[in-house]
C-alpha cells in the first residue's frame, strides 16, 4: 500500500475520534490523535480528573458504563501506535497544516489525511434571565455532575427540548437533587407521530422511555408543549416562569436551571479547511458535505461523529470507524468489505432514528423569533440585544450573518457565535421573512478559541 509519509491526524478523542484512531492503528498506520480535553472520552464519556475518590464507571455513566469503559480503554492496546496528545487545542487550519496549542506553546502539524471528529456542544435559544448565575446549558449541567460531582443546584429545572432533557433530569434526581420540573417545548404528540422512525433503534428508544417512566414514577413533574417566559432572580436564578400547553402562566421555584435545545456541531475547523457545506433543514444548521463513508469534499479530509451532524454516541463510534476505513481505502489499503457493509447498515438505522428524533424534538425557532423582546441579550460575550440586532437590520438590511456580525458585533465575541449563532440566524431570517438558510453562516476566524498573546512557538527555546 502506498502509505503517505505523514501520519494521519484525527481531531477529537470522543467516541468517533477514538474509533477512527484505533481502526487506523489496527490497519498498521500510526495516527496522531489530538484532543483539547485532558482525558479521552469526548462529551458523553467525559472522565473526571484522575485521583482518589473517583466514582465507578457505572456510577458515572449508568447504562452506558460498558461502552464508556470500552472507549476509555480502547487506546491503551495501541499506545505505541497512536500518538495521543491530550490538552491540545487545534486553533487553526491552513494550507495542509494544523496549529496546535498545548501548555502555552504553539506548534504546526502538517497533514496529508485528516479526520475531523470534533463533536458537538449545546444549542441554545436565549430567554430572559439566561445570563444569570445558576443558569447553565443542559450539557453543562451534565458535565458538572459527571466530571466534577457537582450539581447546578439543589432544586433544579431543565428546560428546552431533546432526549438529553430527560436523561439529565434522571441523572440529577438519582444524584439526590430535587428536580422541580422538566419543561419540554416539544409537544408530546410529535413523539407519537415520529414513533415509527424512533423504532429504528428500539434499544435507544427503550432507554428514553425508561428515563421518562422513571421520572414519572418518582414524581418528577414533566410538561410538554411549554413556552419559556423568563428566568427570575436577584443576581442568581430563583425561579422560572413558563406557559403550559394550555397557555397558562406557571411559576416554578429553583436554584438551578439547565437549558438546551439539542446540540450544534463544532464545524469551524472543517469550514476553515475549505470543506463544502450545505444547509441541513433537520438540524437547521450548515453541515460539512460528506458521503456515506465520511469523505468530505476535500481529498484526504474525512468527517465523523457529531461534528458532522448530530447522530449520537453509538453512531459516532460507527462513523469514526467508517471514516477511518475510507481513509485507508483511499490510501490503497485492503479493508474488509463485510465490515463496511455492517457499518453502513448500522449507520442507515442511526440516520433513520436521527431523522425522527430531530422531528420529534424540533427547535422552536419560529415561536421564539416572533416573541423575542428587544431587551433580551442574545450574545453573551458582547452583550448584544435583540433590539441591537433589529436596529442594525433597519439601518443596513444585512442579508448575511457576517454583515450583521460586522455591524452589530453579534457573534464577534470570545465564543465566535457558538452560543448566539442559532438565535441570531433565526432572528435575522425572521426579520427579513426569509428562510434561515438564505442568510449564510458565520465565518469562523482564527483562532477558533481564544489563545494567549504570550504563546511561544515550539521551536523557541
Amino acid at each position: 500500500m502506498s502509505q503517505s509519509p505523514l501520519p494521519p491526524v484525527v481531531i477529537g478523542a470522543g467516541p468517533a475520534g477514538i474509533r477512527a484512531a484505533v481502526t487506523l492503528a489496527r490497519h498498521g498506520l500510526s495516527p496522531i490523535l489530538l484532543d483539547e480535553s485532558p482525558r479521552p472520552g469526548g462529551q458523553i464519556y467525559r472522565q473526571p480528573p484522575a485521583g482518589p475518590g473517583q466514582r465507578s464507571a457505572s456510577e458515572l455513566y449508568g447504562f452506558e458504563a460498558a461502552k464508556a469503559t470500552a472507549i476509555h480503554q480502547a487506546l491503551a492496546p495501541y499506545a505505541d501506535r497512536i500518538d495521543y496528545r491530550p490538552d491540545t487545542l487545534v486553533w487553526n487550519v491552513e494550507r495542509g497544516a494544523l496549529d496546535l496549542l498545548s501548555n502555552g506553546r504553539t506548534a504546526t502539524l502538517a497533514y496529508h489525511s485528516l479526520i475531523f471528529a470534533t463533536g458537538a456542544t449545546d444549542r441554545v435559544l436565549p430567554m430572559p434571565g439566561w445570563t444569570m448565575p445558576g443558569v447553565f446549558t443542559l450539557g453543562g449541567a451534565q458535565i458538572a455532575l459527571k466530571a466534577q460531582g457537582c450539581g447546578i443546584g439543589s432544586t433544579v429545572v431543565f428546560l428546552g427540548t431533546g432526549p438529553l432533557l430527560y436523561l439529565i433530569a434522571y441523572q440529577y434526581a438519582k444524584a439526590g437533587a430535587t428536580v422541580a420540573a422538566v419543561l419540554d417545548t416539544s409537544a408530546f404528540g410529535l413523539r407519537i407521530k415520529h414513533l415509527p422512525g424512533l423504532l429504528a433503534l428500539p434499544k435507544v428508544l427503550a432507554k428514553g422511555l425508561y428515563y421518562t417512566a422513571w421520572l414519572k414514577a418518582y414524581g418528577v413533574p414533566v410538561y410538554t408543549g411549554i413556552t419559556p417566559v423568563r428566568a427570575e432572580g436577584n443576581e442568581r436564578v430563583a425561579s422560572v416562569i413558563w406557559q403550559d400547553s394550555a397557555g397558562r402562566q406557571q411559576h416554578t421555584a429553583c436554584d438551578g436551571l439547565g437549558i438546551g435545545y439539542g446540540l450544534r456541531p463544532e464545524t469551524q475547523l472543517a469550514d476553515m479547511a475549505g470543506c463544502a457545506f450545505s444547509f441541513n433543514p433537520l438540524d437547521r444548521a450548515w453541515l460539512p458535505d460528506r458521503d456515506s463513508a465520511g469523505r468530505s469534499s476535500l481529498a484526504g479530509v474525512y468527517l465523523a461523529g457529531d461534528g458532522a451532524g448530530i447522530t449520537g454516541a453509538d453512531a459516532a463510534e460507527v462513523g469514526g470507524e467508517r471514516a477511518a476505513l475510507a481513509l485507508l481505502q483511499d490510501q490503497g489499503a485492503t479493508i474488509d468489505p463485510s465490515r463496511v457493509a455492517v457499518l453502513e447498515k448500522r449507520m442507515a438505522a442511526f440516520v433513520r432514528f436521527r431523522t425522527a428524533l430531530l422531528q420529534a424534538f424540533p427547535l422552536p425557532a419560529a415561536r421564539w423569533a416572533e416573541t423575542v423582546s428587544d431587551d433580551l441579550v442574545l450574545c453573551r460575550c458582547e452583550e448584544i440585544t435583540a433590539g441591537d440586532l433589529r436596529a442594525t437590520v433597519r439601518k443596513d438590511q444585512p442579508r448575511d450573518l457576517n454583515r450583521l456580525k460586522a455591524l452589530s458585533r453579534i457573534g464577534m465575541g470570545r465564543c465566535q457565535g457558538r452560543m448566539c449563532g442559532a438565535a441570531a440566524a433565526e432572528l435575522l431570517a425572521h426579520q427579513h421573512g426569509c428562510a434561515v438558510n438564505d442568510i449564510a453562516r458565520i465565518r469562523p476566524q482564527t483562532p477558533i478559541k481564544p489563545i494567549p498573546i504570550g504563546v511561544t512557538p515550539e521551536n523557541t527555546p
Partner: protein
Amino acid sequence: MSRLIEADVAIVGGGIVGGSAALFLARAGKKVVLLERDRCGSRASGVNYGGVRRQGRAPQQLPLAQRSHALWGQLPDLIGEDGEYVRSGHLKLARSPQDMAVLEAYAAQVADYGLGLQLLSAHELRQMFPMIGDKAVGGSLCPEDGHANPRLVSPAFSRAATAAGATIIEGAPVSEVEQTSSGFRLRSVAQDLTVTAPVLLNCAGAWSGALAARLGETLPISAAHPLMAVTEPLPAFLPVSIGVEGGGVYGRQVTRGNFIFGGGRGIPHPVSGNAPVPDFARPERGALVNLLQQAAELFPDLAGATIIRSWSGVEAYTPDHEPIIGPSSTIPGLFHACGFSGAGFQTGPAVGAVLADLVMSGQSVTPIAAFSADRFR
C-alpha cells in the same frame, strides 16, 4: 428584468473612497450611480485597522490628509454617526536612537503642515505612557490623530450618499465596461443592469487595476494583505494609537476594551486560483505568531491576555506606496482613485471630495499632482 440607468457619474466600488465620492457628488447635485459588487464598505474599507493617522505620511500626502482631518472632525454631520471616531493621539515609537533620529527628521520635514508633532524623550514617554515596555527609547506624538471603527464608518458613507440622492446598487459586480462616443457603458450581468455616464470613477480598490485594464489602461496595482488581531475586552490601559518606526506592529485600544493590533501580512483566500488579486484574504500562521510576540514585547502586560480573532483584507499597493488619484491621461472622463497602499482609510473622505472637485470643476482644491498615474510611465 433588464434595467438601464443614465447618470452623470458612474462609480465602481463602494469602499470609503467610492462612498465618499458619491456623497459629495450627490450633494453637489449630480446624478450618481455607484455599483458595488458586494456590500458597501465590506472590503478593505470595512476590515482595516481603523487608524485615522496623518503622522508618518509622505509630505506630498499631507494636504490631502489635512483636508480629510477636517472632514473626520465633522463625521456625524457628514455620515450621520460618530463611527466610534476618537482623536486619541497617535504615538510613533522609536526602538533605537537611529529610529528616534528618523522621527526627529520627519518632524522637521513636516513642520509646516500643522500636525503639531511632539517629540518625546525616553523619560517623557515613560511618564506619559507607563504601559509601554522598555523597548521604546522615545517617540513622536501627534495629539489630534486618532482611530475609528471601519466596520461602521465605511458603510455609513454609502448610506449617507443614498440619503443625499445617489443611487447605490449593491451585489452588482461590473462585469463589462466600455468606452462609448458619449462616455462609458457599464454592465452588471448579475443584476441585468446597464449604466451609462459621461464620467467614470474607478474606486475599485485592489481590483482597480483589473477595471482599468478592461478599458485598455495599465495601472501598476498589486494586492497585499495586512494582518490584524484583536484581544478580548481588557481594562483601559492604552489611551493612544501606537505605531512603531520601522514597522512590525501597531495597536490601539477601543472604548469597549479590545486591543486591536496589526503587523505583517496575511495570505490570499481561497488559496487556490491564480487571479493576481484574490477575492479575500486570511491570516497566515507564521505572521500571526510573530505579531503576537511583537505585541507582547511592546506591552509586557498583554502577555497574559488572549486574542479572540484575527483577520486580513485585500488592499491595493503601488510600487512607490503612494496612491493613484486623478484623471486618466489616456481616457477622457475616467478618473482613478486607488492604490492607497495600506493607508487610505484616513484619506478616504478627502479623496472622495477631491474626486467631486475634479468632476465638478475639472480641478482639485487640494494638490494631487504627485499622485498621477503618469509617474509610473
